[in-house]
């Protein structure tokens, strides 16, 4: 269940909106924040809050990159694979991450800490190769910097 303050905050915003539906992405993000991903329940709650059917919410949830309809790890790593990062070695960085985390792209580590996803150009081509961890940007990256970061995140999570 979603905590009451979160819910009532959303309800207030929806009540104040000229067109409730314009908030659908915000509502999905808020519920994703709570569940860790956009669970079925979150889709249903979003629909109930905005007067949409779950399917209508799903039509949007499955469109966008940053809405996760499956459980993800505590840290979602989005590794940019578009052209500039690719020029600057995104592929070997990807291999490095996969090796290090012992998972394939698209997977989550068994400890539930990291999810590894490819993403298209994140607008940090001046800092390539770059990646996002929970939407915070890191770059230019080297394997060493990646290792350091992973280590730091692991420690933070303890």
């Amino acid at each position, binding site marked *: 269940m979603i905590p009451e303050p979160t819910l009532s905050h959303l309800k207030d915003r929806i009540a104040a909106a000229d*067109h409730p*539906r314009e908030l659908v992405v915000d509502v999905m993000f808020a519920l994703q924040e709570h569940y860790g991903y956009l669970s079925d329940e979150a889709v249903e709650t979003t629909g109930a809050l*905005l007067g949409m059917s779950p399917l209508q919410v799903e039509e*949007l949830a499955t469109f966008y990159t940053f809405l996760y309809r499956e459980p993800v790890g505590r840290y979602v790593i989005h590794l940019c*694979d578009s052209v500039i990062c690719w*020029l600057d070695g995104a592929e070997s960085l990807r291999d490095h991450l996969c090796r290090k985390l012992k998972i394939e792209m698209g997977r989550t580590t068994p400890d539930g800490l990291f999810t590894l996803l490819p993403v*298209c150009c994140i*607008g940090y081509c*001046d800092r390539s190769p770059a990646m996002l961890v929970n939407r915070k940007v890191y770059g230019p990256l080297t394997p060493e910097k990646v290792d350091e970061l992973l280590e730091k995140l692991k420690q933070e999570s303890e």
Partner: protein
Amino acid sequence: MSSQETKKYPSVLLQNRHPDRIATLDEYRRSGGYEGLTALLGAGNPKQAQQVLLDANLLGRGGAAFPAGKKMMTIAENAPFPRYVVCNADEMEPGTFKDRVLIFADPHQLIEGIVIAGYAARASHGIIFIRPEYEQAARIMEREIEVARSEGLVGRNILQSGYDMEIVVHRSGGRYICGEATAQINALMGVRPNPKQPPPYPTTKGLWQRPTVVQNVETLCCMPHILRNGAQWFGSLALTENGAGTKVFCVSGRVERPGCYELPMGVPLKEIVEVHAGGIKNGGRFKACLPGGASTAFVPARLYDIPMDYESLKQEGFRLGTAAVMVFDHSDCLVDATVNLLDFFARESCGWCTPCRDGLPYIRDLMKRVEAGRGSTETIEKIETMCRHMWSAYCAFAPGAVSPVQGLMAEFKDEVMAHVEQGGCPFK
């Protein structure tokens, strides 16, 4: 080329840029900020603002280069209210990061631009549509909008003029197509962000079926300066006859100093690369660049001296796009790079129309075969035909997607054929 002395150009949009913080409202004001708006509201003539923007030849900086003044003028006098200004801060064109830099440098410049555009269009709502990767920028904008509000620059009765405009930040869920204006309007309304072919145009029936002006961040950022200094001044900033204003070039790839450089419209490509971005990295040779993001065609070294403005590129059959200059050197396989670009487009297609949704994966598959040395002249013919047909897709996405492919075929056919003839990539 490093011997060439660095020319000093006026800095307009990035004049208040600091390495690690935003410019405050005070700083912005000290540089003349909100003077344009004050004068505009004082004169009380929205039409005049439209005219100034038109005279200034301010072309949309989001890629399509449509004249901003003309766009506003398409709103009928008696068109219904409320009207909307949408600030397109989606910036998902690969290689492009100027809008982020502009927001981080001087958020009030954008706020003033939105209010000016709003007044010119007689709009009461401004919405900043921003990509999720730019969460920090979204927060900056939210905070600075409140600052502006407390100073009477946004909200009710702006600068005691009687004009009201609210500005809100709308976060996207993240998809390239959301940058396309009509798709963005759908996204804002909470429906699937497929584009919507005009007519009706957004300025007639846009957001919530009301007149809506969609404008790129950089376009909006130019507006305060135009209103303060005049159309003529704006024109004089450019190095070329046809150009107007400055342009924020995002330089990336094989250069020493990737980054955003505000330079006069019409500055030669060579100067951008060699002087401002510090030249090709590791002593490499310039081979080609994508001049305006991933949906433009490769500009070959023979055009290294080309003046970078919309018109000059157009005359050579290219597009300035977002002016995201992505540089490749002699060691880069452009076929391979094109496969990467196709990966991007095939993944980001909105899935609405057949050519884009199914044709792009097809072209990618063919291109991969060529890259891997398994292509033939027939494969290449197929690619070329399909690319041609891609121009009959529903929106500008698909033509953009095949632009680099078509550029590759036009300018680097030898390199493509080398893959076929050698049965593999000559660069590996």
